[in-house]
């Protein structure tokens, strides 16, 4: 069907001109899910009757001649750590297996105001901890390009759903690469907005100084449309800020693009390096000014991340105690309060999450705080300063999103560090809080490669302009 190659703006026009109804659109994607998702397994749950109701509401508005919003009737998939009132939100964890969200996340409220259609909740690594979606407590999601490979993670279900055309767009969350890395592995666009640009109210927290919600889409312009709809200050998230409106007129050919040599490291796939270098050459030929830059603390970023992230995880995970909500042994075998905590957590929380809680507890414990946590926070400042310096010289930075293409199931589950290295090019961006987008830029043996653009704080529009021009360049 033609709709698969349409952008959100094009679908919006078709709905307005009544070339297609919102219900037909939703029906089409529901059929796609029914036929494809038994193999790909991107979704944890679907609520088709509610989706139909949402679509009918949009059709009624169109019939009555009312204005409709850009995302009205547009079918979306939502990562399962984002709350939709009355719908299960498991974060792919046993401890939330039967948890029904009691309110809407702010991003969901914003999409509901536009009458978007929610097709379902997508699979992820448990509590967003992982880079392959293999840590889901329920099942593995497959990469639509090759079913023997992982979709990446932690927003693997969202990336796979967009890549296999089971929705028009999806929402994910990105703490160290969890939107961009699966976008790169599956061959779709993924945006990690500036820290504070999008409210996290109603996002199940992982590491609060790093988490951001963002879109996974088929095109850069679609990512812009979704981002514009979800951004903004929210009194329910004190870290959210008023998004400064900045005009960005410069296209790709007018930009000075920085290439950090620290992102072309030993150990990365030579073929990925070649693809990225070739794409940079194309941008140069199109008129962009290419400049080699230094981000000297890049090599420390993963170490900083593996101190700060688990520290914040250990604090955020304290709420799952079998007392307030979620899986609990309160009414069964536990005889005292401590055993309710211990048994509820032992049964409900998976191994990777436990490991990070332990690691975080250790680095925050008495006697170790200065050596680990404080030092990591100091090196984090150095990483942020690297970006500040770089952006005084260049408008935007281009790097590979990941050091390899999607790997096979089980390939990295045994060695704890091998899996963590999959995020080596995405983690520094979260530590500095800058925005970045991954755009598909080629394939190696049929597996997609992602090109990552990084812009200064609140310069998402620079990413969109550059990304769009790049898409035109290679189309």
């Amino acid at each position, binding site marked *: 069907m033609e709709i698969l190659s349409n952008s959100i703006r094009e679908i919006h026009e078709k709905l307005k001109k009544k070339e297609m109804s919102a219900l037909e659109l939703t029906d089409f994607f529901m059929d796609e899910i029914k036929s494809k998702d038994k193999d790909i397994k991107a979704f944890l749950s679907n609520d088709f009757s509610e989706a139909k109701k949402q679509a009918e509401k949009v059709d009624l508005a169109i019939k009555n001649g009312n204005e409709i919003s850009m995302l009205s009737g547009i079918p979306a998939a939502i990562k399962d750590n984002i709350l939709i009132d009355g719908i299960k939100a498991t974060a792919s964890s046993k401890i939330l297996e039967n948890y029904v969200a*009691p309110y809407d996340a702010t991003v969901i409220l914003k999409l509901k105001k536009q009458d978007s259609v929610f097709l379902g909740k997508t699979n992820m690594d448990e509590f967003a901890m992982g880079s392959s979606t293999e840590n889901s407590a329920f099942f593995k999601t497959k990469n639509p390009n090759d079913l023997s490979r992982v979709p990446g993670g932690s927003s693997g279900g969202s990336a796979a759903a967009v890549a296999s055309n089971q929705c028009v767009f999806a929402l994910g969350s990105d703490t160290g690469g969890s939107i961009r890395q699966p976008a790169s592995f599956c061959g779709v666009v993924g945006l990690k907005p500036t820290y504070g640009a999008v409210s996290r109210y109603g996002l199940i927290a992982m590491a609060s100084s790093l988490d951001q919600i963002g879109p996974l889409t088929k095109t850069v312009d679609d990512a812009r449309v979704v981002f514009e709809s979800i951004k903004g200050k929210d009194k329910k998230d004190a870290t959210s800020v008023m998004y400064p409106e900045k005009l960005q007129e410069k296209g790709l050919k007018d930009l000075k693009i920085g290439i950090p040599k620290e992102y072309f490291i030993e150990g990365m796939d030579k073929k990925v390096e070649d693809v990225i270098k070739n794409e940079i050459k194309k941008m140069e030929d199109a008129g962009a000014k290419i400049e080699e830059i230094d981000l000297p603390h890049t090599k420390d970023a993963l170490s900083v991340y593996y101190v700060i992230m688990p520290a914040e995880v250990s604090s955020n995970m304290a709420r799952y105690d079998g007392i307030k909500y979620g899986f609990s042994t309160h009414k069964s075998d536990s005889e005292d309060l401590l055993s309710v905590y211990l048994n509820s957590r032992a049964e409900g929380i998976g191994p990777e999450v436990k490991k990070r809680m332990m690691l975080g507890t250790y680095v925050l414990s008495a006697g170790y705080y200065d050596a680990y946590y404080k030092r990591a926070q100091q090196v984090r400042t150095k990483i942020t300063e690297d970006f500040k310096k770089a952006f005084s010289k260049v408008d935007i930075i281009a790097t590979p999103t990941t050091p390899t293409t999607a790997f096979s199931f089980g390939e990295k589950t045994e060695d704890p560090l091998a899996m963590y290295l999959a995020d080596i090019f995405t983690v520094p961006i979260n530590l500095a809080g800058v925005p970045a987008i991954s755009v598909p830029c080629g394939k190696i043996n049929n597996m997609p490669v992602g090109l990552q653009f990084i812009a200064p704080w609140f310069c998402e529009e620079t990413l969109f302009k550059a990304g769009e021009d790049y898409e035109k360049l290679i189309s």
Partner: protein
Amino acid sequence: MIDEDQVKHIASLARLKVSDDEIGKLSKDLSAVLDYVKELNKVDVSDVSPTLNASSSENVFRDDDEPDKQDAELAKKLIDSAPENEDGYIKVKSIL
């Protein structure tokens, strides 16, 4: 190096129950990660202030006014999500 006794101690601080099978693996995995992050000791951080807040905002206040009605309904829903509740309170096992 995190030995098995330390694993048990950390687990008790984190309110986690770890089985004997898990202790060995955790000792190995935690040691591997801590060994990796040791690289941070090589970075010169003298006179560098730590990033305490990733956002540029400071002291974000809300208005000190009446909570809206929706908040009261939500509070009830939240209490109802607990395994056991009584008279608007969450009930836990006896503490003393």
